[in-house]
């Protein structure tokens, strides 16, 4: 915290600033217009993810505008002395995969990035905020942001998850219950024994979609799992310095007697593998449930427009809905453990005829580790294409897009109309193993049944 502004907002220092090619080139232009320099270039790191093709990344990129965006990022970072994790350096990847895996993301930091899924980094006990381009400019020029205080809602999740139920199902369930605007004005702090048992990668999946619930950011207290994840990472101090850092990190956890503006309790044992049926992430149901009707949905207009767009019927089972595309990847579910979980069940199965299935590692490091473990071969043997790292089909700013009204079983985070690149394309969000099950069946399916995970 630096101080208070005239309008009552606070000026907050940003310990780490991450940038990518979509929301940042314009900010460098704004700096130039004002004759400003980057104040703390060593606190900003860049990667390229949204526009990078996942088939060939040979330069120049086939898409002229994509090439230009990449060039502007290259030039701007070089000019201002900002480290850029370019393709083929071994460090490139989706910004929210790269930060944690390099150990740039550390407990207690304030982190921002021109990307709403910055909430991901909250899994480390960080205040991590998605910002607009003018704010990217503010941070480049001053390393600070103007902010209003946030209320905190504790999302307390207790109990054991059923087999086949993942972190993705947990967050889809939370958003289903609290709504896409339920979190407006709040930071979501996830806690409870279900969260404490989760790995860092699972916690990142949960925090990642906080923004889909309307929350400004997501947060989980740092603990031993956090510190052990960070130990030995490239940008984390080692030896004695690690122990010093760890002692400092553990001082950032919220106290047991902290007070909250709101508390919501969830029973993890009640959560089913969850899939969306509509055009917002809150329009979700358990895979065994039926699509809502006017009686069971709170907003009839939204229901009708969503069903019209999705070409689905009220009260129909979601299971069995035919899919044409399967996508595993994104900043929500593009980490090593996501591909490991799928590889474990996918062996011996094959993608259904007529389904285009792609697996896109979240970073070059994820790709390398997956290859070292032979995971790519399991995916390829099952009929998936194993691609190069990038945002890929999550938002279709690259060649990976739906065609016409194709239905995509997707491990990404948004099922908005047109999100995956076709104005009539349809997205059904689910966990990676549920995507694999849908790919194998050619239709939305219960992974527990397809892969015999019961009991």
């Amino acid at each position, binding site marked *: *915290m*630096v*101080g208070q*502004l*005239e*309008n*009552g*907002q606070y*000026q907050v*220092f940003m*310990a780490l600033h991450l940038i990518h090619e*979509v*929301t940042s*080139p*314009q900010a460098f*232009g704004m700096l130039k217009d004002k004759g400003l320099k980057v*104040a*703390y270039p060593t606190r900003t790191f860049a990667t390229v993810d*949204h*526009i990078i093709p996942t088939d060939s990344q040979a330069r120049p990129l086939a898409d002229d*505008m994509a090439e*230009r*965006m990449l060039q*502007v990022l290259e030039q701007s970072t070089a000019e201002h002395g900002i480290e850029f994790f370019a393709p083929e350096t071994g460090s490139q990847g989706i910004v929210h995969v790269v930060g944690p895996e390099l150990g740039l993301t550390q407990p207690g930091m304030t982190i921002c990035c*021109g*990307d*709403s899924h*910055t909430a991901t980094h909250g899994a480390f006990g960080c205040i991590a905020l*998605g*910002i*607009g*381009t*003018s*704010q990217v*400019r*503010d941070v480049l*020029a*001053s*390393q*600070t*942001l*103007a902010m209003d205080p946030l209320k905190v809602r504790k999302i307390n999740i207790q109990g054991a998850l059923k087999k086949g139920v993942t972190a993705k199902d947990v967050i889809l369930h939370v958003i289903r219950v609290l709504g*896409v*605007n339920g979190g*407006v004005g709040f930071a979501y702090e996830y806690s409870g024994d279900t969260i404490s048992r989760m790995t860092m990668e699972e916690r990142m999946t949960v925090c990642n979609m906080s*923004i889909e619930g*309307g929350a*400004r950011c997501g947060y989980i207290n740092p603990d031993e799992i956090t510190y052990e994840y960070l130990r030995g990472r490239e940008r984390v101090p080692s030896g004695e310095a690690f122990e010093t850092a760890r002692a400092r990190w553990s001082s950032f956890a919220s106290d047991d007697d902290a007070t909250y503006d709101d508390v919501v309790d969830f029973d993890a044992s009640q959560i089913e593998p969850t899939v969306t049926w509509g055009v*917002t992430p809150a329009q979700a149901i358990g895979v065994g449930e039926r699509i809502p009707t006017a009686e069971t949905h709170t907003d009839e*207009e*939204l229901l009708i*427009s969503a069903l019209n767009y999705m070409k689905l019927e009220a009260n129909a089972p979601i299971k069995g809905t035919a899919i044409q595309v399967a996508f595993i990847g994104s900043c929500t579910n593009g980490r090593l453990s996501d591909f490991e979980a799928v590889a474990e069940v996918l062996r011996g199965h094959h993608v259904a005829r007529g389904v285009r299935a792609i697996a896109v590692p979240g970073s070059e490091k994820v790709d390398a580790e997956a290859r070292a473990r032979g995971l790519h071969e399991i995916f390829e043997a099952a009929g998936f294409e194993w691609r190069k790292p990038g945002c890929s089909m999550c*938002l279709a*700013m690259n060649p990976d897009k739906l065609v016409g009204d194709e239905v995509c079983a997707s491990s990404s985070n*948004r099922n*908005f*109309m*047109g999100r995956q*690149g076709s*104005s009539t394309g349809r997205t059904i969000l689910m966990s990676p193993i549920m995507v694999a099950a849908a790919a194998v069946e050619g239709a939305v399916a219960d992974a527990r049944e397809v892969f015999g995970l019961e009991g």
Partner: protein
Amino acid sequence: MDNKTKRSGRAVYVPGNDIDTDRIIPARFLKCVTFDELGPSLFYDERFDVKGESKGHPLDQATHVGASILISDANFGCGSSREHAPQAIQKFGFDVVIAESFAEIFHGNCTTLGIPCLQMAKAPRAELAALVQKVPEEPLLIDLESMQIMFLNQSFAFSMKPSTREAFLAGTFDPLDELLAQRDAVAAVDARLSV
């Protein structure tokens, strides 16, 4: 007219709750290195079919051409943090957005660009939207100081986030100069965190 505290113009109502940033500007239009050309892509897939033919969206109705005030429903601007969304709204010609509620990042982005986001309760906002549809040629008069909209001799109250309203009244909605003024204090924080 004092443009810090007052706005006026004709309005257009774009109905729908949870209108997300991908609907405001689809991702495929985000490929740009400046925001200058984004205006025409505003609500593109809502306005045009796959052949590029107009679907008769409110924005394209003759009675609303030239409108500078956008009215919508609840949770407007949810989804991405992309400033492309408010930039497209601004470049299209809007300088005020009225809704029942706003997504936060979108709200913040609008503020920095100088677009006030006015919140109105459901019933009066619906009444205002209905009146605008009936008499689209009549301008609204908006006063940020008194937080009132005058339309057809009727007065409608709205609310604003206090810090946002303060920033508009003081003309400091773009905080950069204020942030830069604290260089020394910022350097002290940087030094403390760099130990």
